[in-house]
Structure formats: structure tokens, C-alpha cells
């Protein structure tokens, strides 16, 4: 049985190699920017990718910071491809040209470019007056590489009506994917966009609008939304580590338990999404090898993680609110709240 919230074929390892970025986007969950120099060494990540492969991870997704500013990106992409893994990266698109773009050729299966609405909205979110213009100017070059590409749209409380324009733009540009990701109030988003997180009404509308957009564009574009219908989850507790499955964690691959897994720029390896409580982290690459931390986590931490999953699952299933919600946000918030409560009682 496939475990973990993610899919059955692709087991994702999301790597944030650096917080260095040319922009200071308002919604950035990692508070990345030009002043941030935190980064992981390539040898550390090469070893982590190799050992993650042994744990079943086969989809390496680079994010940041701006990953194309990471000097050893090509080396990591080549290494992942040599291991037979799928590779993708998320970029703000403003620097995707010349040598930086060429370094992605032949080793990148999907390039995701941020697009947060009509040009004026996009520029506001990117905190840069020419961000859209710069990104758009690079799209011809991206197409010429032949790398499949898509756009990622950050949904806020007030921009759903721009999704139609974004969808049309994505089709016009020849994108393969449009992914809608709800804003979470973490990182810079917590201070710069307070009150802009889409509430349950906006999330529900976004879910419906996603269906509508997919219907309108047909096969021209895959439209995805990072939200889930609670009623669809009721029978999937095991998939979320919230069920009664008692198959020993020690006998399972980490990718069958945690998917996606995230490596943060400080070396922390955490479940599910950036910013997950360190109390449930797998370990830190600066202190332990990936293989060793995975074995220890399954033995020592998994019971607590599973209890957290079960508690959040029961809480969500007991709600009588609109059923569309962000599971990852719910469990990440709960992980931090739980860690805070534990610290207070200690």
C-alpha cells in the first residue's frame, strides 16, 4: 500500500539548496532574498540524493531561494538524472536566460515558473516593478530549450478572479502545467500579507474554478490545485499516517511514510513542507547522514509523528465547515503548535 499523502509513482524530495534570491517576494515562505547567503554544500546534497534514492525517493524538486543562482545546481541535476530520478525546479523566471538557462538543458524534466496574476499583481507580489516583463521576455528562450514548463500561481484572498487570465496566458505560452498554490502565512508572508491567506470560501471557490478552468482548456494544459476535499480523505487515513496500519516503520522505506520530504537550507530534513516543526524532523545533514537519520527517525520519532497525523486528521474530519482545505498547512501548523506546547510544559 502506498503510504504518505503523496502519489504512488513519484516520491518527492524537495531541496532548498539556498535562500539566496534576486527578489524579495512578499509571500516567500523561506524569507529568501539578496541578503540571504544560507546554502548547503553540493557534496552534502549529492550524498543525500544518493541515500534518498535508496529510501525510494525518485522525484527531486529544487526550490529556494532562487535555485538557478545555486552554483552547483547542474551538478545536482546531473546526479539525480544519473540515478534515474525525475527532476524539476521552481524559479521566479526573471533570470532564466543565457548560461543559467543552458545549465538546465538535458537534466530538467519540468521547469515551474512563478506567475501570480496579471502583470501589475505579479509585480506587487514579487516586490519588483519589472518582474513580469523580465519573466515574460525569457519565455521564448525557455520554449527553445524544449524543457517542459508550467506556471505556479499563488492564490490569495483576493486574486481568484485573475486565474482566468493566468490560465489563458499559460495556454498562450505553451505551458504544460498550471498549479494553484494557496498562500500560507509563514515566512515573509506572515508579515507582508497578513490577512491574505485564502479562507474556506476562497479555497472552495478556487477548487471549483480549477475544475472549470480545466474543463475550458481541455488537454491543452494540466490545471492543479494544492487543496483537497475533506470528504475524499475520510477513507484515506492510512495514506496520511493517521490510520490503524501497524506495519513497522522500520521495515518500510522512508518514501512510503513521508512524501514529500523536504531539505531546508540549514540542513534540516523535515516531513511534508518547509517550516515543519523541528521536533518531528528526520535529522540534520550537517550532523548525520541521510541513511542514519532515516533509520533513527523511523524507530524513535515516527510514533509521535503518527500521533500528530492522527490528531490533525480527526480534527479536520470532525469539522462542519466547507470541505476544501489545505492538509499540509493544517498539519504543519499543528506540528509547530505542538512543539510550542511541549516547550512550554518542559
Amino acid at each position, binding site marked *: 500500500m502506498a503510504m504518505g499523502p503523496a502519489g504512488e509513482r513519484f516520491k518527492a524530495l524537495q531541496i532548498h539548496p539556498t535562500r539566496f534570491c534576486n527578489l524579495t517576494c512578499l509571500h516567500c515562505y523561506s524569507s529568501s532574498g539578496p541578503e540571504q547567503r544560507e546554502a548547503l554544500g553540493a557534496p552534502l546534497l549529492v550524498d543525500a540524493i544518493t541515500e534518498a534514492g535508496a529510501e525510494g525517493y525518485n522525484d527531486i*524538486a529544487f526550490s529556494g531561494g532562487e535555485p538557478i543562482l545555486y552554483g552547483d545546481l547542474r551538478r545536482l541535476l546531473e546526479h539525480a538524472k544519473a540515478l534515474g530520478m525525475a527532476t524539476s525546479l521552481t524559479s521566479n523566471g526573471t533570470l532564466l536566460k543565457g548560461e543559467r538557462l543552458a545549465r538546465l538543458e538535458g537534466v530538467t524534466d519540468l521547469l515551474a515558473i512563478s506567475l501570480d496574476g496579471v502583470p501589475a499583481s505579479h509585480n506587487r507580489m514579487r516586490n519588483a516593478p519589472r518582474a513580469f516583463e523580465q519573466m515574460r521576455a525569457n519565455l521564448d528562450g525557455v520554449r527553445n530549450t524544449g524543457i517542459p514548463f508550467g506556471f505556479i500561481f499563488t492564490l490569495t484572498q483576493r486574486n481568484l478572479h485573475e486565474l482566468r487570465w493566468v490560465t489563458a496566458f499559460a495556454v498562450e505560452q505553451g505551458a504544460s502545467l498550471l498549479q494553484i*498554490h494557496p498562500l500560507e502565512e509563514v515566512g515573509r508572508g506572515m508579515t507582508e500579507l497578513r490577512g491574505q491567506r485564502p479562507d474556506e470560501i476562497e479555497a472552495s471557490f478556487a477548487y471549483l474554478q480549477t475544475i472549470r478552468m480545466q474543463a475550458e482548456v481541455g488537454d491543452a494544459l494540466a490545471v492543479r490545485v494544492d487543496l483537497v476535499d475533506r470528504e475524499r480523505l475520510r477513507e484515506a487515513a492510512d495514506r496520511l499516517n493517521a490510520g490503524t496500519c501497524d506495519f513497522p516503520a522500520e521495515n518500510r522505506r522512508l518514501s512510503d511514510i513521508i512524501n514529500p520530504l523536504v531539505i531546508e537550507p540549514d540542513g534540516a530534513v523535515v516531513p511534508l513542507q518547509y517550516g515543519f516543526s523541528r521536533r518531528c524532523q528526520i535529522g540534520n545533514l550537517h550532523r548525520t547522514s541521510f541513511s542514519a537519520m532515516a533509520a533513527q527517525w523511523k524507530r524513535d520519532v515516527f510514533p509521535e509523528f503518527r500521533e500528530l497525523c492522527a490528531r490533525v486528521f480527526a480534527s479536520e474530519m470532525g469539522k462542519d465547515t466547507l470541505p476544501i482545505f489545505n492538509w499540509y498547512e493544517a498539519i504543519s501548523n499543528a506540528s509547530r503548535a505542538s512543539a510550542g506546547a511541549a516547550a512550554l510544559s518542559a
Partner: protein
Amino acid sequence: MDKVETSTAARGSNAVAEEVFGKSSEVSTQALKQLLSISRAQGVRLEGWWTHGKPAIEAVTGVMHVKPEVAGQIFTQLLSVERVPLKVEGFPLGIVTTDLIELRFSTPGQR
């Protein structure tokens, strides 16, 4: 550069509702619940949620678990019906059947 305005600004969904249902329509929470229930009854499944924050590579490699465009056609038809929220008010949740949908959501002139 000005910061994005805060929650005092209009919801994005207000503009969508205005486009779909007309200026005088408001979409209630109950109506949204019912539309979502109908989408479930029609077999609409969106599994993109599990990609969460990373590009959905399966979406461009031909291993999609669902084809929402198929069910989406039905849903678009529902959404296109004038003043849908008024028609779905009062629908009992969780027991929407195809027969009921056909009865309640036929477009003008089709009943």
C-alpha cells in the same frame, strides 16, 4: 512599491461569482457546500493537492490519476446555469443523486 492591500479588499471570488451568476447573486456557504457535493457525486476528483508546493511532475508525464476535464465539462455546465445558488438552496447535503442533479440543474428550456 505599495504593499498588496489587506483583507479589507474584496474577495477574488466576488468577481468570479459576478461573472458566473450575475451581479445580484451571492453565493452562500450552503450553496458552495452543495456544489462541492455535486462535484463529488459527479465523480470529480482533483488529486493535485498532494503535489503541494512542488511542481506536479506527474501532470506532464501522462500518469494522471483522474481526468478532471471530463467531469469538469459537467460542472461547467452547472456553473453556467443562471443563478445556480438559488436553485441549489435547500438541497439536502450528501444525498445528491444524478437524477436530482438532472432535475434541478437542467438549463433553461431543457426541462
